[in-house]
């Protein structure tokens, strides 16, 4: 199914998205990857606030390349999500509901997704030049010293994703491959 949705990702909206759906996202997303997640989770452990309101937020796992003059952002495709598995349940526990990345997640992340009604969107890994065209605004909001890993607020328009894991825990990596292999079996 093809969907065009507007963020933030509420519980109600999240529950309408299913594994395998093509979803074009419009609205605000926050960028963070390894070092940013570590800092955010350390801040939460100290009882501090995050640099942005996590309620219904979508986090894009990306470390963009620098913008050329005239560009909003450099190439900006997803990084491997599995490295954020250690932090993702904590982020969901404070309200973050959407994740954009690529690659497999651990069972504990999927469990947290079911608990908090979260959605894991996949963007095409390695398609950074193409995906950057859907990013219309980019604002640095924290951890500027981390360079590519700094926390940024992006405004995206019709940003193409596929639901890899939905809030019921269905996983496209398992389903897509099984469906393909089943189609190749002699009838």
């Amino acid at each position, binding site marked *: 199914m093809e969907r065009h949705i507007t963020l933030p990702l509420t519980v109600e909206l999240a529950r309408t998205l299913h594994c395998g759906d093509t979803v074009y996202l419009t609205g605000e997303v926050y960028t963070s990857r390894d070092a940013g997640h570590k800092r955010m989770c350390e801040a939460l452990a100290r009882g501090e606030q995050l640099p942005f309101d996590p309620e219904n937020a979508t986090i894009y796992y990306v470390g963009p390349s620098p913008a050329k003059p005239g560009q909003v952002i450099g*190439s900006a*495709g997803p990084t491997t999500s599995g490295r954020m598995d250690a932090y993702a349940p904590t982020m969901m526990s404070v309200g973050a509901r959407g994740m954009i990345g690529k690659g497999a997640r651990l069972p504990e992340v999927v469990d947290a997704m079911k608990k908090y009604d979260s959605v894991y969107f996949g963007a095409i890994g*390695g*398609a950074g*030049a193409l995906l950057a065209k859907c990013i219309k605004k980019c604002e640095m909001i924290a951890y500027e010293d981390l360079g590519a890993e700094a926390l940024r607020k992006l405004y995206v328009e019709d940003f193409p994703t596929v639901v890899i894991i939905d809030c019921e825990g269905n996983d496209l*990596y398992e389903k897509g491959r099984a*469906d*393909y292999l089943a189609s190749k079996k002699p009838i």
Partner: protein
Amino acid sequence: MREIDVKQITDVVRRLCIEANQDLPADVQNAIRCCRACEDWEVAQNVLDKIIENFEIAKEEQVPICQDTGMACVFLEIGQDVHLTGGSLSEAVDEGVRRGYEEGYLRKSVVRDPVRRGNTGDNTPAMLYTELVPGEQIKITVGPKGFGSENMSAVRMLKPSAGLQGIRDFILETVEAAGPNPCPPIVVGVGIGGTFDKAALLAKKALMRPVDVPNPDPFYAELEKEMLEKINRLGIGPQGFGGRTTALGLNIETMPTHIAGMPCAVNISCHVTRHKTEVI
């Protein structure tokens, strides 16, 4: 004896860093287009179309194909009749990387300490490999290597009794374990023989060979073909969403080894497998 100023090397490395990151090599482009033509799974066709559109945009607009512009792997084959002048060779290479990554708006992805981290801010140091060869030229190859795929690579010290089947199993096991993480369709570099470290270097060198150039030894050329077919029957598909196209190519490099061993390394690379070469 020919004198070459290391500043010349700085300039070539600078340029190759930028070009490699913006212009996907022709062999990889062709492999992606061929796989798109053979792919019969709709989801996979759509992903491959986007991947083709992406590398076309990167070339046209001179922007990085992927935001992970990699660690700069630099291979120098230095003719033994060359006399290098003008300063340190490794500093000259790092200066080329520094300038290339700055001028090319490439991402700086290197941390100065593996445990304590801290970005070096200029993507140095390069991963530099030098080799002495006959002649009075220098062949410079720059292969920016992303880490989504590097992280899925593996080395195993196989017993000689494991034989060819042991190698087949290890390659498939590594690709299977990598699954969707390394941005398939992937390129697989395999190194067999040497020592623990040499096997890994052979695997990296295998990734620098164009995917349409088979191993000169027919035995290994056949193994490359066989393993590529086996990988493309796994069903992982582009991005892991299912499909035929899991790998674009598989290259094997080998060298002699010890009577007691059969080291095997599998270096995984993504569909943005980059390499540019120039001879000075």
